[in-house]
Every structure is written in C-alpha cells, then in structure tokens.
C-alpha cells in the first residue's frame, strides 16, 4: 500500500504531536458518534410503531437531573480537549523571540521565493533544509494571501501581505516532502507547489555552495546565443540571473534553475524537453500565469534552454 501521505506520514516531532492530538480527538469523536448511532439504531428497532399498537406512548417531558448530567460530561470532555490543545500549541509553535529567521519565504502569484539570509542563497519553489534541525522561517507576501503547507512536516501558515509571520520548519527524516499553497490566491492557486528537500548536513552545505556559485555567461555555441537572447528579449524584466545584468524579482531567480526538480512551481518536471515546452508557451501549462507567451521561435527556444542548462554545469 502506497504511502498515504499527510497526517498518515508525520515526519517531524511537531507533526507527530499534531497527529497524536488529531487521533485522540477522532477517537473521542468516534466513541460519541458510536453512542449516538447505537442509540438511534436501537430506537429504530425497538420504538418503531408496531401495527397492533394503539394510542400514544408515555408523554415524558424531561428530567432536569439528566440534562445536568449530559451537560456536565461534554463540559469535561471539552476541558480535556482544550488543555491538550494548549499544550500541543505550545509544543508545536513556541515563540521565536529575537531569533533571526533561517529562511525567508516570500509568496508570489504563483510561485515561492526562497531566501537564506545567513548564506545569501536565493532560489524558488524548492526549500532545502538540513535534516533534524529546527529552523525558523519568516513568511511574507508580495501580492495576495498565500499559505505554506507541507502536510508531512507540520502546521500551515498564511503569507499575508503587510503582516510577516513566523513558523518553525523541521524534518525528522531525510526525504522530499511535497506541499501546496493552501489559501486561494487566484487562477493558478492549484499549481503553486512546494518541495522541501531534507538532507544530511553535509549535503545541505554542498547544495548551499553550489547555489552560491555565480556562473560565467557562456559566449559560444547555441548556449551563447541563448545568453544574448536572454538579455535582449524581455526575460530581464522579470527574472534574475546572477552574474548578468538581469536582476528583477517579478519571476523566479533562474541562476540555478536547471538544478531544480520542477518548472512552474510543480507544473512540469524539469527536463530540457519540458523546459522547451514551457518556454514555447507557458500559458498552455499554467494558464493565467504572469509569464506571457513570448512567442519565441523554435531555435530561440532551443538556444535559451541550452543557456539555462549550461549555467548549471559550472
């Protein structure tokens, strides 16, 4: 049976705490529902009007004692649930105090800008973290309200323009964790996926170093052509490629695009073929996306793909 994901595969102590609370609550609820269902089933069988029955049954108006008992019991259940709620809240979301965030996540329609203040790494849609470490994320939005949700790792939290939020991010096991935007943010809300890659410390350092490499601009071959096209077509108006004049933040940083697993925040797997398809007409794969169809010719597409792939080979 395949991994069911989400609540069924908690991969951090925080998520486990929330999963436990959920299971306790579901268990209590199941018992309560069971009592009601059994009572109703019994009533249907036992108190159904039989054909030979005549007249009215005993007219019972109620009993104050019983009302008090069955008000007191739910109060007790609620009290227990509330105490568990508070303790789980404290465990999952302790205050951040003055600590500086390790990761800054900025929501855009419809992609995630990811920055690491300490190292200076800037990337998009994929968050790499060292396994086992409890990191503090600050979440902001540049446009509308988004929500960061990786079901196996922990709570979700809104990215509200004008109101930065903080969240702890930790993965207990190495792996790739898939998440999604969880606050309706417009046409392509459904295609704003998150990938959290949790890796051993050494691998994470290696990734950081690779991300910080500023590639030199290719000049020869179709990659060189692509580099020139990138500067002359409108790409620079929206994207950053470090080491060049392109430094806009409307769209994702493409310096190490070739390193990422998906294109368009999850809409396509990242292969040169798919990248070519995307460039030929992004609106086909993410209709409404803020990247217009640049109406590139086939050779232009080939060149730019070659350029972007070449950036990562250094």
């Amino acid at each position, binding site marked *: 049976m395949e*991994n069911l*994901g*989400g609540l069924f595969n908690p991969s951090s102590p925080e998520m486990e705490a*929330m999963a436990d*609370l*959920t299971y306790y*609550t*579901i268990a209590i*609820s199941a018992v309560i*529902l069971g009592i*009601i269902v059994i*009572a*109703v089933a019994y*009533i249907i069988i036992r*108190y159904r*009007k039989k054909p030979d029955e005549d007249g*009215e*049954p*005993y*007219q*019972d108006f*109620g*009993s104050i004692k019983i*009302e008090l008992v*069955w008000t007191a019991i*739910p*109060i007790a259940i*609620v009290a227990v649930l*509330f105490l*568990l*709620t508070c303790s*789980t*809240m*404290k465990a*999952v979301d302790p205050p951040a105090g003055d600590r500086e965030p390790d990761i800054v996540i900025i929501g855009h329609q419809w992609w995630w800008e990811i920055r690491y203040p300490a190292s200076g790494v800037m990337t998009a849609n994929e968050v790499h973290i060292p396994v086992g470490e409890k990191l503090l994320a600050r979440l902001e939005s540049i*446009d*509308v309200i988004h*929500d960061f*949700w990786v*079901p196996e790792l922990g*709570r*979700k*939290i809104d990215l*509200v*323009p*004008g*109101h930065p939020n903080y969240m702890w991010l930790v993965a207990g096991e190495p792996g790739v964790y*898939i*998440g999604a*935007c*969880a*606050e309706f943010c*417009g*046409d*392509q809300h*459904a*295609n704003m*996926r998150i990938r959290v890659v949790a890796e051993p410390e050494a691998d994470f350092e290696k990734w950081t170093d690779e991300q910080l490499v500023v590639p030199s601009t290719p000049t020869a071959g179709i990659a060189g052509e692509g580099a020139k096209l990138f500067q002359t077509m409108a790409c620079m108006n929206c994207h950053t490629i470090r080491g060049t004049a392109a430094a806009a933040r409307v769209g994702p940083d493409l310096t190490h695009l070739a390193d990422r697993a998906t294109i368009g925040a999850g809409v396509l797997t990242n292969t040169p073929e798919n990248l070519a398809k995307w460039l030929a007409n992004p609106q086909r794969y993410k*209709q*409404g996306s803020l990247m217009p169809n640049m109406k590139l010719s086939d050779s232009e597409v080939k060149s730019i793909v070659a350029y972007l792939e070449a950036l990562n080979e250094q």
Partner: protein
Amino acid sequence: MSSRIPLVPENTVPLPSLKANNGLLSWVSSVDHKQIGIMYLIVTFIYFLLGGVEALLMRVQLAHPGNDFLTPELYNQLFTMHGTTMIFFVVMPFLIGVGVYLLPLMIGARDMAFPRLNALSFWLFFFGGILLYYSFFTQSGAPDVGWFAYAPLSEKPFSLNKGPTYWALGLLASGIGSVASGLNNVVTILTMRTPGMTMRRIPLFVWMMLVTSLLLVFVIPIITAAFAMMLLDSMLGATFFTPAHGGSAILWQHFFWGFGHPEVYILILPAFGIISEVIPVFSRKPIYGYEFVAASTVAIGLLSLGVWAHHMFAVGLGNVTNAFFSLASMLIAIPTGVKVLNWVATMWGGRINFATPMLFGTAFIIEFVVGGLTGVAIASVPIDWVVTDSYFIVAHFHYAIFGGSVFAIFAGVYYWFPKFTGRMLSETLGKWHFWLTVIGFNMTFFIQHFLGVMGMPRRTYTYYDMPYWGPMNLISTIGAMILGLSVLVFVWNILVSLRNGRPAGDNPWNAWTLEWATTSPPPVENFELVPPVRGRRPLWDLAHPDMPDEPGAKIV
C-alpha cells in the same frame, strides 16, 4: 380617509391560480405571508438547482487529476458562485421563507407584524440574486474570488474585473432584505402571539426563529459595512483592505467572519427548529427538555458572536488569541450536544412513524453529529493547523450544512407540504429520494475527510497525482451524481404530488401546533377560530382534555 381603490383586487383564495384574472399580479403584489413564503420556497429551489449544477460541474472537473474539462477561470467562478448561492440564496432564504409562512400560523396570528416589509424582503432577495447571476452574462464573468472574497485578491490590482462588484452589490441588496426579515420576525414573535401563548409555550421552531432573527438583526450590518468598505475600495480608491496603501487584509477577514460565523448559526438554528417540530410529532411524544432546548438556543446565539477567529487560526494572530477562540468554539459544542441528546431522548420510548419527514429527521441527527464532531476537532488550534483549507473542511461544513440544514429542510418540506398545498407528497417517491440522498451525500463527502488529512488543498481546479487521490475523487464525483439523481426524484415527487397527491386534510400527521388547526391550505385570514392555548401543544390539549400538558393552567 376617502374610499380606497385598491390597485390589485383583494385576495380571497389561498393559492390563486396564475391562469386566473390578475393571477400573476396578485402573486407579485402580494403582502400575504403565505404567498410570500411560497414565493421564497419556489425561488430558493431554483437557486438550489443552479448551485447544484455548479457543484456537479466542479465534481466532473475533479474526477481525475490534471483534468481539463473546465478552465481554471471558470472553475474559480463556479466554486465562488456555488458557495454564495447555496448559503445566501438557498439555505438562508428557504429557512426565512418557511418561517415567514409558518410563524404567524404557529402563534395564532393573521399575518406578520409588517406585511409590506415582508414583501420588500422577498423582492430584495429576488433581485439581489438576479444581480449576482447577471454577472455570468457579462464580459468578465461571475465573481471568482471565493464566497469569502479575501482581500487583497478581491480588489484591484489583483481583481480587475467586475465580478466581485456584482457579488457585493447582489449580497448587499439581499442582505438588507434579510435584516428586514429579522426585524419583522422579532416584532411579530414578541407582539402578535395569540392570548395564552406565553413565551414559554411557543413552538421550538418559533424560539429558533427568534434567536435566528436577532442574529440577523445584529450581524448582517457587519457584512453590510464590509461590503460598503470593499465597494469604496474598488470604486473610489479607498484603502481599507489594500496592504500596498496602508490597508489591512486581515481586517477584511475579521469583518467577514464576524458576520460569517454567526451566519452559519443562522443557517442551522431554523433547521434545528424544524427537527424539533418533526421528531416529537412522529415519535408521538413531546420534545424532551423543552426549556433546555430553548435555553441552549439562546446560548448558541450568544456564543456564536464570539468565535469568528477560528476561521483565522492560520493567519498568525498569536497563540493567546488563538487559544481564546479555540475555547469559545469548543464551548459552543455543549449546547448543541444538549439539543442532539434531547432529540434522541424524545424518540426514546416513542411509537415512531418513519414516514419520509421522520426518515430525514433521523438521518439529520447522525449526519449533523458527524459535522458537529469534526467541528469540535477543528476548534482545536493544532488540528486546525493540519486540516484548515483542505478537503477536511469541505467535508466538515457539508456535513453540517447539507447533512444538517438541507436534510432538515427536506424533512420540513415533506412535513409541511400538505399544509401549504392541501396534498400529500408521495411516500414511495419520498423513500427513493431519501435513500438516494443518504447514499449520494455520504459517498460524496465522507471520503473528503481523508483527502483533506492526506494533504489535498481546497479551492483548487485540479490536483496532483498523489497516491489514491484520483480514485478517491472519482468516488466523490460518483456520489455527487447520485445526489443529482436524488434531486430529480424530489422534483418529480413535487410535480406529481401537486397534481395527484392524496388530499391532506387539516392535520394529516396528527400534530399539535396551531398551524394544524386550520385547513390545508389555510384560508386567507389563517384561522376561522384560533383554538385556546393553555400549553405548548394546543391540539394535544384539545384532543386529550383529561391529560393536558399543563394541568392547572389558567384559562385566559
């Protein structure tokens, strides 16, 4: 004053035929609460069909991952309109409409306190809905920002089309009508009860409508203000909800949910009222614990004003705030639970007739308890952090609103249709309707609890091919198709029974409240003679003079 020359001839028959002379005019100009009530029921039913089609289209799109049956733009319009329609143009006006019909009868009055205000309410609702649906025919289409229209997505520059404006204006108009209904109900209930009917003797449906009406009076202005601010933002460049200019996106949420949460109690309390009438009659026993059911209604009404931010646990309001709203939301489960136990206790020891109203009434209890229990779960902040904005929430509120309000509405229709029309609905078709509804409803929504906890977000026009999500969504879609079929059976039942239904007589269910003490349908003046009221069940007291509900009650 000089002699009156009415524009429209006085109405002398209960249900004037449209084919009669001035037939349509007599309906359109009517200020009779029974005609207005019936108009509410007919129009809400049309919106129910529209909202249902919207839902079916969405479910077809979601039947498998990566589907392209609908474009994202159209899907987003559909889910916005589905939610807005079902809440504001189906459940709420249906319950208001059935209240408008029944309240004067149940309290032994001739009409509402303000008959013309009553008509105004209906027409505001009617035209508000038309204004909203007109948006489908405009160039930019229907609103597509969700029924909750969060800022700043709903405003410029993120929403450049007119959809949200139609949404706000249509709801504004309809909302003013709802306040007027609330005001009318409150004054009617407080001042027009027949002698002998003290507040402690009014039917529980009337209690529920009283609390609901007070809620309408006090919370619709909250959303009216929010709509006004939103329209000022979009039309005059005001900055209430635009963070880029110093406004606050969170302020919109506080206003919206400050209204929106009490609104869901407005949707359920009258449904509780219907159930509180149906279950005793079909169990042949009085409601168990009348005082506790009435008091718990008041408690729910008051508590409902203090829980709104449980819709905002993921917004980052701070854990002290979160904890307060968490506790308040859990507390509201207590009076609600008391009601459920009282209904079950009413059935206990009864001699139950499982006619269609009672089938829906009994199923209501189970379905609503599921919705209520998941509600208590999500009142817990960490659990909410896991499941909010996922299909778990979609499942939760459909169990509460469909499994709750709509099932109660069906129970009410089968119960009171004979009174409104003089004919019984078919029991055979009723049972088919019931079972198709139960199977279709549970098949559609139960599995969504699991989709939610497995990580499927809501308000998404498509989803990724995660393990099992496709088959689970397909099951949900098939359930929705069965639900669609059940509605067709219901429509058929109504049409067939209007023509050929068994004549009902005054009191086919042998019920006890005053609406059954007159003909079916009631005459224009409601009663030839209102029976004496010396207890909660006037007709029981009449039929059992040796065993009155309140022995020793003074004759008024």
